[in-house]
């Protein structure tokens, strides 16, 4: 069932199909299993809680986009994470303004020369971000796993106003000891439709302008 209000990080993790939970420091060795240790919905860098309408577990988005596995998908938005007709929906062109303002994630800035990553042919985005939402998952990896994958889709109301500093950003950050990951907190790779904009293998900042307009 979709969850529009009172959702937690755990709700979104479950919508992502990450359902098994575990403890960071279990009292017994036998209880040391893989799974989700914690799940939080936060602002970009602070522990403040975003507006409730900015995240949800959706059972569909429009008439075409449906869950790829199980009954729901995790949704986060710089506006409202709602489909038309859902409670709290705001037209994304008109937009939702939560009033929040903060710095972009420090680890991401540090890994990109103090800037928000962008295509070289576009103006640099500001390092102050607005209406941010962060789903932070802490996970113990199964002892027989050496990687993970997930499915994603990004929609923006800014199309076709591409390559402007106002474009929204989507970021996925992975902190891992894997030698395949850069030493600092690093992004996992989300393929971009325009390869030239994905010059850094590990950077998946996805400017809003890259994606198809929400229909």
């Amino acid at each position, binding site marked *: 069932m979709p969850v529009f209000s009172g959702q937690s990080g755990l709700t979104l993790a479950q919508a992502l199909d990450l359902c098994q939970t575990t403890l960071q420091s279990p009292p017994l060795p036998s209880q040391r299993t893989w799974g989700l240790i914690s799940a939080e919905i936060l602002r*970009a860098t602070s522990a403040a809680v975003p507006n409730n309408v900015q995240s949800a577990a959706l059972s569909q988005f429009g008439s075409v986009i449906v869950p790829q596995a199980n009954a729901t998908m995790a949704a986060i938005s*710089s506006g409202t994470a709602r489909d038309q007709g859902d409670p709290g929906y705001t037209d994304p062109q008109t937009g939702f303004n939560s009033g929040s303002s903060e710095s972009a994630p420090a680890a991401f800035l540090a890994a990109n020369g103090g800037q*928000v990553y962008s295509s070289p042919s576009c103006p640099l985005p500001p390092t102050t971000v607005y209406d*941010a939402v*962060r789903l932070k998952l802490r996970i113990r990896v199964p002892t027989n796993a050496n990687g993970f994958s997930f499915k994603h889709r990004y929609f923006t109301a800014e199309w076709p106003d591409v390559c402007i500093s*106002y474009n929204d*950003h989507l970021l996925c950050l992975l902190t891992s000891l894997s030698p395949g*990951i850069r030493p600092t907190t690093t992004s*996992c790779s989300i393929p971009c439709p325009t390869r030239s904009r994905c010059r850094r293998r590990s950077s998946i900042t996805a400017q809003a302008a890259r994606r198809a307009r929400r229909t």
Partner: protein
Amino acid sequence: MGTAAAPVLPGEIIELEFIIWDSGDGTVDGLALFDDFRWATIEQPVGCDVDGDLWAAASCGGTDCDDSNASIHPGARPSFSTGSTTTVTAWWTRASMRR
């Protein structure tokens, strides 16, 4: 939907964060959907995980130094009653590296 993937180490604790933000107009919003999280699993060849603890034996290039005992593997708590001092130290080192 597109698919994203990344490598991890078996048994480690990772942090995975999804962040979306507006870059200045305060309106004209974006939305991201995520679904179908899956692990990429390591298939252990026959004879490489005799104790069934999911850690491959050192003889197979894995990190399980005792593939006959499921309670002994990287990340397991040391057994002071049975382990030598050297072994205990090694286990603590490995365990701390994985936290």
